[in-house]
């Protein structure tokens, strides 16, 4: 299951003990199945206990596992007839974003996802999943094409952020992100966004303005990474674990805050334990979301999205003033 994380250590140790016992039984021909059953029961309990009560920081670390399924891993499990489309027609092609057209249960869709590498070599090729402006502009090009051909758009968010680089700034990283927010808000086809790993800041939001936002249980989504938050707020990147909790970045936090629409459960231990099974769970969530949005007309799709973002905010007006309206939005979220 890939490199173990410290909190998983007891599980790995017990698994090792079980396999040692099996080897011993085989070699010596002694029946110790009572003992073996006992250990296997204990393993099940331990897994349930450990993975059932993960802290936000533990989830962040699962979200970052190298063997956690990415956009390209889910693509063949969820879609058929995928045709990848490259390039922004302005500058270049960004391998940190994968985009194209496909069928979802026979229905034409446009698929866009951020793509990190699954090993060092691929990570270098894909710039660790951190897009440049041309990536966001490719995504926008494909979204506008989807609008033209009336296809629903499904996006997969998985990024440590938009790339902080010299060339990215020169080519207008800010403008590229801003433009996507601007244009996505007015699309009249359904847009469903799924946070599958990391969702850092504007780099995630740039493909994340949707009618429904879905989030895997062990993914995170925030204005900044826990390390970044700790460095900025407390001048100590080492306090990332605290920041992961304080900043309320996990799926269940965002569900409580009313920012996401659905929290997608993960297979025990995380999506990487069984990508096929995980894809089935995501598949069902996407089917449900598309079904929920299908009665809406094109104009209603746009209005639903505009209303959803219009309602986000937590503020109040403290004292009487002729130009003020009552503005506490806390109970006013349109979900």
């Amino acid at each position, binding site marked *: 299951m890939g490199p173990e994380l410290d909190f998983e250590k007891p599980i790995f140790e017990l698994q090792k003990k079980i396999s040692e016992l099996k080897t011993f039984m085989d070699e010596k021909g002694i029946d110790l199945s009572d003992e073996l059953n006992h250990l296997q029961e204990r393993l099940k309990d331990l897994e349930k206990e450990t993975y059932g009560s993960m802290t936000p920081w533990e989830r962040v670390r699962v979200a970052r596992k190298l063997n956690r399924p990415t956009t390209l891993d889910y693509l063949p499990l969820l879609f058929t007839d995928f045709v990848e489309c490259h390039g922004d027609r302005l500058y270049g092609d960004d391998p940190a974003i994968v985009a194209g057209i496909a069928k979802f249960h026979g229905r034409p869709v446009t698929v866009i996802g951020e793509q990190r590498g699954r090993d060092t070599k691929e990570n270098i090729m894909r710039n660790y999943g951190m897009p440049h402006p041309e990536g966001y502009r490719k995504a926008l090009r494909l979204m506008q094409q989807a609008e033209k051909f009336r296809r629903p758009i499904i996006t997969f968010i998985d990024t440590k952020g938009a790339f902080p680089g010299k060339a990215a*700034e020169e080519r207008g990283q800010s403008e590229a992100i801003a433009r996507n927010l601007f244009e996505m808000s007015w699309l009249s086809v359904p847009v469903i966004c799924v946070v599958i790993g990391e969702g850092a800041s504007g780099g995630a939001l740039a493909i994340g303005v949707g009618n429904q936002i879905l989030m895997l249980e062990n993914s995170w989504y925030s*204005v900044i990474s826990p390390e970044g938050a700790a460095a900025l707020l407390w001048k100590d990147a080492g306090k990332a674990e605290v920041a992961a909790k304080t900043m309320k970045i996990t799926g269940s936090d965002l569900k409580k805050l009313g920012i996401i629409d659905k929290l997608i459960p993960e297979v025990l231990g995380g999506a990487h334990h069984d990508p096929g099974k995980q894809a089935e769970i995501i598949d069902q969530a996407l089917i449900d979301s598309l079904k929920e949005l299908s009665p809406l007309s094109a104009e209603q799709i746009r209005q639903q999205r505009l209303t959803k973002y*219009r309602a986000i905010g937590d503020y109040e*007006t403290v004292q009487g*003033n002729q130009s003020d309206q009552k503005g506490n939005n806390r109970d006013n979220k349109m979900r």
Partner: protein
Amino acid sequence: MKDFFTKKKKYATVPSAKARQDVPEGIVRKCPKCKKIMYVKELQKHLFVCQSCGYHYPISAQVRAEMLFDQNSYVEFDRNMVSLNPLQFPNYLNKLESDRKKTGLNEAVWTGKGMIEGYETAVAIMDKGFRMGSMGSVVGEKLTRLVEYADQNGLPVIIFSASGGARMQEGVLSLMQMAKTSAALKTFSKNGGLYISIMTHPTTGGVSASFASLGDYNFAEPGALIGFAGRRIIEQTIGEKLPEDFQTAEFLLKHGQLDQVIPRSELRNVLSRILSIHAAGGVEG
């Protein structure tokens, strides 16, 4: 961009926006760029621009409003809107309170309307003295309401950005204000609204990557720092020193991201020309 921090402290000793305008005679200030010492009264006369080197001092929202509008022509909107601390972030409300005392503002943006050379205009002015001008729920809501007001009343919108980006203490809600303000501007744009963005020092992060970059006209003040990622993070990431002018207004102009860099002394003139061209309307559609 060290200057920005040292100067902030000087402003911080002045208790309110109003007081900041009434600086007593005889007080001098040293230009952080050319080091020339100048009377504040003299600086004020020249819109807080160093007459020796052209350095544009960052100014408060209140001073900007006085400078921008025709005399006694403006009113403020939504003055008393405050954050509810959605994440229950420790100490956040105290910090807001202390910035309120420091700046005389309730939040990091002033919104209102007034006349510019006779043209009625909806205007937002960010103030970096308040939580680094960062955008949380209140900034996002005030901007959105301003744009909606302009839409309903057929007014142009001008937004002066001055912001370190999204407000950390409101987490994902701050992030979503980027989408909220951008969506409001898209609707406004679809209805034919005119939006002029003026980026002042600094316009970075989530503000740069949302409404500030979405003007029908994008302008900046000379020397303003404008960009998505911070210089130090970029240098660490790519392992090289960045040029001196990196992420300045002039750098952005060179790279095609701005229509013009406009000195403060010429701003009202340029704005009035744009407003008059737009007021005249276009051909039949």
